[in-house]
């Protein structure tokens, strides 16, 4: 009995047995459901393909060296997306720089200090809520605390809003990765006389580094495409500006402004920008997932 349960019967042999023993109705129902499931998968793939094809078809035409070397200019004057791209890079980098250490420490706390405790459960719960919270509300929150009181949109506010989004993502992956490390490693460190913090920083982090970096990559991919939080914090800037205390341009916000305009060159640039963002985000995701799979 157990031998026949060890391996699932292959689909083909199952079908034969079924055909012999089942009534028509059951067979037909099963067939119909299978077809529907294949269709469902097809539908999902179709939409992904449609989005990618649209991006490539509409965005590829405008892709040129000039897009990366010219600033955003009034319509009809050519122009590119340089300040938007750089603004995005700066705010994404800063947001990651601010959010990762915090997320790292929270993940460490959950895994090393509070595993199983009530407080740990609550913090994990809250972190998961923040993970899926609407990003526009985070933008509103940062507006209220960083923009309104100081009467100015700024790159800093944009970076902080992105950092808030980064934190829960890094918390989740850090905790998962640290959990995977066998206790024996920690015990060995302690046996050699290392204080707890050293065993975490020099042993556990090292061991989990790939996984943690993957989490950071996923966070970067997520915030690179976020528009709503930046609308209320860094606003957008048509000029070239590296001043973090003034409004700062970003690629998603620029796309948002350009996409609805009547000027063909602006709409074209919007699609180029969309193509750039999607290509970047998907590349980061694929790299992260490949790295994750190698780990676990």
């Amino acid at each position, binding site marked *: 009995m157990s031998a026949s349960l060890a391996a699932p019967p292959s689909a083909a042999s199952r079908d034969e047995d079924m055909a012999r023993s089942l009534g028509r109705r059951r067979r037909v129902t099963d067939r119909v459901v299978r077809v529907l499931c294949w269709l*469902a998968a097809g539908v999902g793939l179709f939409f992904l393909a449609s989005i990618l094809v649209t991006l490539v078809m509409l965005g590829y035409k405008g892709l040129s060296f000039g897009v990366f070397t010219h600033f955003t200019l009034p319509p009809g004057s050519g122009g590119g997306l340089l300040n938007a791209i750089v603004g995005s890079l700066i705010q994404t980098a800063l947001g990651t720089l601010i959010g990762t250490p915090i997320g790292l420490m929270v993940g460490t706390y959950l895994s090393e200090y509070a595993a199983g405790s009530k407080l740990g459960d609550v913090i994990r719960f*809250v972190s998961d809520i923040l993970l899926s919270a609407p990003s526009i509300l985070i933008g509103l929150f940062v507006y*209220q605390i960083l923009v309104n009181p100081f009467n100015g949109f700024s790159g800093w506010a944009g970076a902080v809003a992105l950092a808030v989004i980064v934190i829960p993502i890094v918390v989740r992956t850090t905790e998962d990765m640290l959990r995977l490390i066998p206790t024996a490693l920690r015990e060995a460190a302690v046996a050699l*006389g290392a204080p707890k913090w050293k065993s975490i920083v020099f042993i556990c982090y090292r061991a989990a580094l790939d996984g943690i970096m993957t989490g950071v990559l996923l966070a970067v991919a997520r915030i690179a495409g976020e528009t709503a939080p930046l609308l209320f914090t860094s606003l957008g800037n048509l000029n070239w500006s590296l001043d973090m205390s003034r409004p700062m341009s970003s690629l998603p916000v620029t796309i948002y402004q350009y996409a609805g305009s009547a000027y063909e060159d602006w709409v074209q640039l919007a699609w180029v920008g969309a193509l750039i963002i999607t290509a970047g985000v998907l590349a980061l995701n694929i790299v992260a997932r490949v790295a994750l799979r190698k780990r676990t």
Partner: protein
Amino acid sequence: MSEVLAAAPASKTSPKRPKRGSGKGDAVFALIAKGSGLLVLVLLGAIIVTLFVGGLPAFREFGANFLVNTDWDPPHDIYGGAVAIYGTLITSVIALVLSVPISFGIAIFLTELAPSWLRRPVGTAVELLAAVPSIIFGMWGFAVLVPFMATYVEPPLIDNFGDLPVIGDLFSGAPFGTGIFTASIVLAIMIIPFISATMRDVFLTVPAVYKESAYGLGSTTWEVMRSIVLPYTRVSVVGGVMLGLGRALGETMAVTFVIGNANRITPSLFGPGNTIASIVALVFPESPAGSLKLSSLLALGFILFVISFIVLALSRLLLRPGVRA
């Protein structure tokens, strides 16, 4: 651990070792770790409080009426949130109705039906759909879906069903292409990956022995899913669906492009509307700091946060602890 090591005899010739567990480094590190954990809690509290305090002038001005008033009248400084709340709820519900069956089908496909060489690519493709930024969905919706709806879907439905009694109201109006239904479709496509990934993970936790017993007794795939897998995972499946709902409620960019931006409630599926997220995105640039308009937007933001919080909390509680959403 520390007891074992403390019991070991200290060698007289070894140099004095710093006490484990009570060193300054440990205390500081532990403090930072705990502090960061508490910071997360403070963050959530701060968001809730900030939105509430910012929206207080609006709540005070309009009271509970804010929730049911459909008037959004800037010239007279009267703001009611009913249209935005209704839009948020109805687009999310329709998005769920559209996406749950498809997600379910994809999950079954990935766990039971797909040949093994197809499993990984299709799974990855579905996950990549989740990674696409929402503004791309909005632009795609506006460039591809809206013209499609305006040309091929809405005119025939309006012409044929618009004049029927009762359900005709659902199909009335002009074929704008944008509107509640189109927005719901875009939302549905956005949340399919989340729900199907959760369902797939949850289906994989069903012990093989249950399924094999059923197959051994002659069940078809569908019967195994219906009678074994679903009842076993029912709670977590609902949790996954709620996670998708939580996402859909807060979507901004995907919806703003295609919802038609109208501050009215219409019975028609093809009618325009607004969600909380889209009205905040649209009206914010023209709301002076400290105005009742801005306060109303913050009040709506607070309401959205409360709704999302409840849905996401429920989803978290329902999903089996072992399964990561």
